[in-house]
């Protein structure tokens, strides 16, 4: 049972970290929206799923890749990857803004209770995933190989693969950019103001609706970037992948302290590691169960997460 875990420890750690960086970016989607709305964005998992299709549309329809195309090299490769990243982020970002417009805006304007907003968001999530199910006829969609899975070097027996290394570096960079954006830019300041005190922010002349839309957009962009890395590493997507990824990333956000951007980082990496270790010890079929158990345990013993606010205190 533990043999694989001990034999492959460093390999597992490395893939856990790269998976963790994907979770970090999705968790950012949850945490940003939670920060301003004090509400979980239930459709974030579907925003992720739509993002993965952005990457595939870009490579398949824009660059005419198919399963037999030789992977490009050099400048062409970089171009394809960047366009894919942009496409993923655009798909996810637009979906996120759509979610805000359709599921949240009207209810917010009317000031109805949270239950109504939650149900509306669940409905939106259902609609997004069903639309994709119908569009893809319930079939999984493979992504043509863009990036050769070259083994760069071995560290302590762990193979460092190009795609996972790029995931870690690029996802890390995107995380830092977004974190700086929230910290330093004018808009970021407005976002933080709203998350601290909505009424006071409004009195200071902050356009609440715009801030909320931008928050959804930024969260969507982060989630979309995660979707691109997911497609690059796993080369596959399906209409229902959002659920497991979403649950994991949400758990990561809660683990780090939801609403807290740096918390999302630690939560994401920790969860990526936990998931990979659990899969090695218990078997991959128990992955989601492990994640769920972690979520329940965190909510039970440390609901504020490692770095965040207490979620039980601020009730609906």
């Amino acid at each position, binding site marked *: 049972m533990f043999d694989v875990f001990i034999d492959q420890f460093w390999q597992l750690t490395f893939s856990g970290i790269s998976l963790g960086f994907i979770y970090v970016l999705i968790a950012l989607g949850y945490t940003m929206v939670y920060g301003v709305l004090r509400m979980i964005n239930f459709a974030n998992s579907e925003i992720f799923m739509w993002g993965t299709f952005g990457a595939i549309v870009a490579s398949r329809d824009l660059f005419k890749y198919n399963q037999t195309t030789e992977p490009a090299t050099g400048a062409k490769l970089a171009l394809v990857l960047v366009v894919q990243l942009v496409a993923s982020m655009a798909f996810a970002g637009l979906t996120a803004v759509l979610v805000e417009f359709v599921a949240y805006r*009207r209810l917010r304007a009317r000031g109805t*209770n949270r239950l*109504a907003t*939650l149900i509306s968001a*669940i*409905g939106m999530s*259902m609609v997004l995933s069903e639309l994709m199910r119908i569009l893809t006829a319930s079939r999984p969609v493979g992504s043509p190989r863009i990036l050769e899975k070259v083994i760069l070097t071995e560290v302590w027996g762990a193979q460092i693969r190009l795609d996972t290394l790029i995931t870690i570096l690029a996802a890390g960079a995107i995380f830092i950019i977004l974190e700086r954006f929230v910290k330093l830019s004018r808009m970021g300041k407005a976002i933080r103001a709203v998350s601290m005190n909505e009424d006071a922010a409004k009195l200071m002349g902050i356009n609440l609706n715009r801030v909320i839309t931008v928050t959804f957009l930024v969260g969507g962009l982060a989630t979309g970037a995660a979707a691109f890395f997911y497609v690059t590493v796993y080369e596959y997507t399906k209409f229902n992948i959002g*659920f497991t990824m979403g649950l994991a990333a949400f758990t990561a956000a809660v683990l780090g302290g939801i609403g807290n951007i740096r918390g999302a980082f630690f939560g994401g990496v920790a969860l990526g590691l936990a998931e990979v270790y659990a899969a090695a010890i218990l078997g991959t079929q*128990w992955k989601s169960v492990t994640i769920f158990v972690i979520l329940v345990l965190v909510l039970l013993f440390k609901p504020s997460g490692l770095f965040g606010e207490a979620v039980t205190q601020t009730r*609906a």
Partner: protein
Amino acid sequence: MKNFNLRDFGAKIWERANRPQRVAIALSSIFLVSLLPFAGGSFLATPIAAYDAVLVYPVAIFVLMSLGLNIVVGKSGMLDLGYVAFFAIGAYTMGFLGMHTSLNTWEIMPIGIGLAMFAGVLLGIPTLRLRGDYLAIVTLGFGEIIRIVALNVSWTNGPNGISGIPMPPDLGPIKFRLDDQKGFYWIVLVMILLTIWMIRRLSVRRPGRAWEAIRQDEDAAELMGVPTFKYKMWSFTLGAAVGGAAGVLYGSKNLFIAPEMFTLNVSILILACVVFGGIGNIWGVIVGGVILGYLPDRIRFISDARLLVFGLVLIVVMNFRPDGLLPRKKREKALVKKGADA
């Protein structure tokens, strides 16, 4: 008539009637509803599946489950997105015990209900202290976990599911046959009536008032001395019990169960029934269950894209008519409006 709504109209008739009249109204409506399986030749006929089977599942079982979920979502205002878990627990209890013991459906029923309630308590202890959206996501995860467990442990027979589950033994003149499901329909009808009776009794007593208080403002309820955790737990486990009962019957009716029957989608469908009809109002929930259970089998287009339609129902109803088709009583609504922004 300004602001006509069917709910108030019905309530007016009911309130004007005296006791014998009420009994007459109730008995005649029950009688009419129990005659529904004989209306298969009329415009009600369903082109896709056999009419009497459709009346049992989805229609009647949806109504039963919607009533159960309504105790949780409508009465005490907690969003339970893992309701399918209790349904699955009931069905698997039936499947397992029906195959491995000589117990029949009616003997397994209390066991299935008990296990579903037990699961409700297990899930409730860590989660019911959480705020609404956390509860929603944890229950969502729980529903999916139960399915994954059923998929991966050996005694559920994994993805192949359990087949050959015994049918219920006949109850006197009521026969249970695969090709004639009237018996099942009447049994579910009895279960629905029992559930309605239970909810109505509870609603006017302490638990009902506690739920109402919790739904409107949990903090205030707590301050006023309502043991909120206890009553939330009760509403959660009662909902689970109804779901478990529906599951046992479904397993016994269907003869075959497999994990893919118990996906998150079922929870969403039932939630859509509750929301569409009118959260919190028994009659609304019943109407919602009937319409959303029946239409996909009547109209082929909806059958292919039923989840899409149900998702849209959730969004549209919440945005434009949050009280659903048949809203709660005005008195209750007025109270909600005040507490809405809390």
